[in-house]
């Protein structure tokens, strides 16, 4: 937290900016006066003063000199010691001094003029009629204009809709792609280095990330997040519970909302008052209830987190007992809600 003094200064700064913004707009008091402009002539100058003084010339020269220094410094540092901060400082200051030179020159050196210019009035009704007539005459001698126009519109529309059909034909293939995961019954669960994970690697209050053995770790269907709960705390139907050996649950690690990796495990340190164990996605904080089979308890996700059925082999290694219950990855338009694939 910032100390109150600093906060006060910030408030003051904010207030003064607001006040300035509201005040800066001029509210002149004199009546608007129209100065007639001569057509074809350059706009008349109504004010002209020559502000150049020895002081402003010196200031411009000094700024230009510092620009040269900054640019030279940049070259020297680039060759001798290319440090990002020094390079940025030299080049940045060179340009800032060039800016000072230009702005001082623009305001205090060259003639300051006020010039008038006339606004063009657009829109010539006669010409508009002419153009409209030209357009209309393009249809001379045709009797069924409306019908022809309608037919042309229908033809264009049909072609347009037809052109989108190749997109739709991607449909079934798309769904296949989205449904596929590398998991199948008998595939061992391994860690990122490819070492098989055993039941003892998964401890309560912690999570492990697992992958299908011998498959790509780069697809959304691949990573799972493994957690362990006491068996009696898990509230899912018995046939599902049978696929959670020793209370080890394998969820898809990809959030069903927007596809981020779920990397937070909210585990109560004092279970009497704190909320139940949940997996939380750090992108939009969708929160999935671990005890109730990954149900959404908070946040924007619309589907439960899919569960991978697991079993243990003789070496107590974790093995997939089939593909996920439900679709993995962010929901797509047309995804099946719960229970199995489309």
């Amino acid at each position, binding site marked *: 937290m910032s100390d109150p003094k600093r906060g006060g200064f910030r408030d003051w700064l904010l207030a003064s900016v607001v006040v300035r913004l509201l005040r800066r707009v001029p509210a002149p008091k004199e009546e608007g006066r129209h100065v007639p402009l001569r057509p074809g002539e350059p706009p008349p100058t109504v004010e002209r003063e020559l502000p150049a003084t020895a002081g402003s010339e010196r200031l411009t020269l000094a700024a230009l000199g510092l620009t040269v220094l900054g640019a030279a410094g940049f070259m020297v540092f680039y060759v001798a010691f290319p440090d990002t901060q020094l390079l940025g400082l030299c080049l940045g200051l060179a340009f800032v001094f060039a800016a000072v030179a230009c702005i001082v020159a623009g305001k205090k050196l060259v003639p300051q003029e006020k010039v008038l210019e006339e606004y063009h009035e657009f829109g010539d009704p006669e010409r508009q009629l002419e153009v409209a007539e030209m357009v209309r005459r393009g249809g001379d001698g045709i009797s069924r204009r409306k019908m022809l126009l309608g037919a042309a519109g229908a033809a264009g529309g049909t072609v347009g809709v037809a052109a989108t059909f190749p997109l739709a034909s991607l449909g079934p293939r798309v769904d296949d792609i989205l449904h596929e995961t590398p998991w199948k019954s008998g595939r061992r669960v391994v860690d990122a280095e490819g070492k098989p994970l055993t039941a003892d690697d998964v401890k309560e209050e912690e999570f492990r990330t697992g992958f299908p053995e011998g498959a790509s770790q780069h697809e959304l269907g691949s990573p799972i997040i493994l957690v362990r709960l006491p068996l009696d705390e898990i509230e899912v139907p018995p046939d599902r519970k049978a696929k959670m050996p020793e209370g080890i649950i394998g969820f898809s690690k990809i959030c069903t909302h*927007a596809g981020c990796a779920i990397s937070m495990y909210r585990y109560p340190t004092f279970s009497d008052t704190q909320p139940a164990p949940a997996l939380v996605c750090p992108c939009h904080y969708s929160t999935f209830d671990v005890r109730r089979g990954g149900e959404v308890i908070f946040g924007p996700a619309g589907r439960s987190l899919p569960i991978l059925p697991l079993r243990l082999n003789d070496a107590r290694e974790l093995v997939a007992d089939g593909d996920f219950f439900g679709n993995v990855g962010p929901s797509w338009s047309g995804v099946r809600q719960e229970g199995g694939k489309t």
Partner: protein
Amino acid sequence: MNVEDPVRFVDERLGATSGLRKLMRYVFPDHWSFMLGEIALYAFIVLIGTGIFLAFYYSPSDAETVYRGSYAPLQGLGMTEAYRSTVHLSLDVPGGLLLRQTHHWAANIFIASILFHMVRILFTGAFRKPRELNYLVGVTMLMLAVLEGFAGYSLPDDLLSGMGLVIAYAVALSIPFVGPSLAVLIWDGEYPGGSDFWDRLFTLHILILPLVIATLIGLHLAMIMRQHHTQFPGKRRTEKQLEGTPMWPAYALRSTGLLFLVVGVLFLLGGLIQINPIWEWGPFEVYRSTNGAQPDWYLGWLIGGLREMPPLEIHFGSYTVVPNPFWGGAAFPLVAFGILYVFPLIDRRFFSRKGKSHNLLDRPRDNPRRSAFIVAFLSWVAIPFVAGAVDRVFFRLTIPYTAEVWFFRILSLVGPFIVYAIARRIFEDLRRRDPHPLRGWNGRIVRRTPTGGFETLGATDGRATTTVAEHPEETVAE
């Protein structure tokens, strides 16, 4: 100095003197708020310059490679060529980090200055006839700039860019009916996509979008030159003529000064203030994510929209027709930009006189209802923007995250209305406080007497009372 010879040289070959004469006397009205668009233009120039340098080193490829550069913590780590080349250009190319950080800062400032420029245009009514078309071009540029920025910070394939891309992929998937096909088409397969995706993203970022934006900038400037700038009313500044500084010499020097100032400040930022140190985030993997990840500021409103949204979906039987990310990630920006696009129509229907051309600007207080509407609209976008960062509030102040989200959900619904009421009141008070530049003063000065009563000092008390008979229709009746 011999000026005649170069002028003759150019004129005898291109016949350019009449055009030059016009250009050099082109008039710019003087007001600080007219500089905001120029800042955007100059930031764009910096983006092009630094971007060309970055493109020489960056490689848009998802080919697997192993890091062997100078940064020890990543040594021997598997990563894509895109990430490796970005780390390489940042840490092993002299000046590379300076240009990359300057590029990133320039992108942030480019979009910020477009936004502020647009807010200025909205508040002052500069979008009104005859400049509606130019306003639409400007809104389009803002939209493309946001897209361009997102494409840019997605390219390094670091952890943050991957998290951003997967959200974009989910939003694409969520578009009703066409979403899945569209997403698979764009990404060249299921996320993280085929190798063609990186070529597409790169081409979009360095060729297509910059080209479109540059073309629109040209169109934007050409339209301004055709119609001339708007101006605030004043002595000699009327609907029929504008007063200001000519291009040559004063304005050209000042504007060049602003260009150098923008370039200088961006290089100072790029050199001195770290931005997006991708070597610390590490390469992206679908199974990795990090807590406290925030996108660049101009996408904050969208992450907030996604986070705030309750789990609403449209289902048909057991099938999801509209998945949740559609609301915050697609519908929200579509509606926001939709409102911006039709704002000239809204203004003509509710806040201004119809069919009239305007060269003189309003001050925000001159049209309290329009200004209040704009403030309310901006608050509608700003509330999710704040909501997108409430996890930081949770970590700092330990206010429960769920409570915060519920607060912002409700605030998003009622906030803009409250803001409208308050803003309208403030603008109306401000308007009463001083003379309207065209309508003059219409208040009364009173003085409290010792006995507790009030006496009127007269209508003017020395304040200007003139009205401009020429343009009575300018005064918008309340």
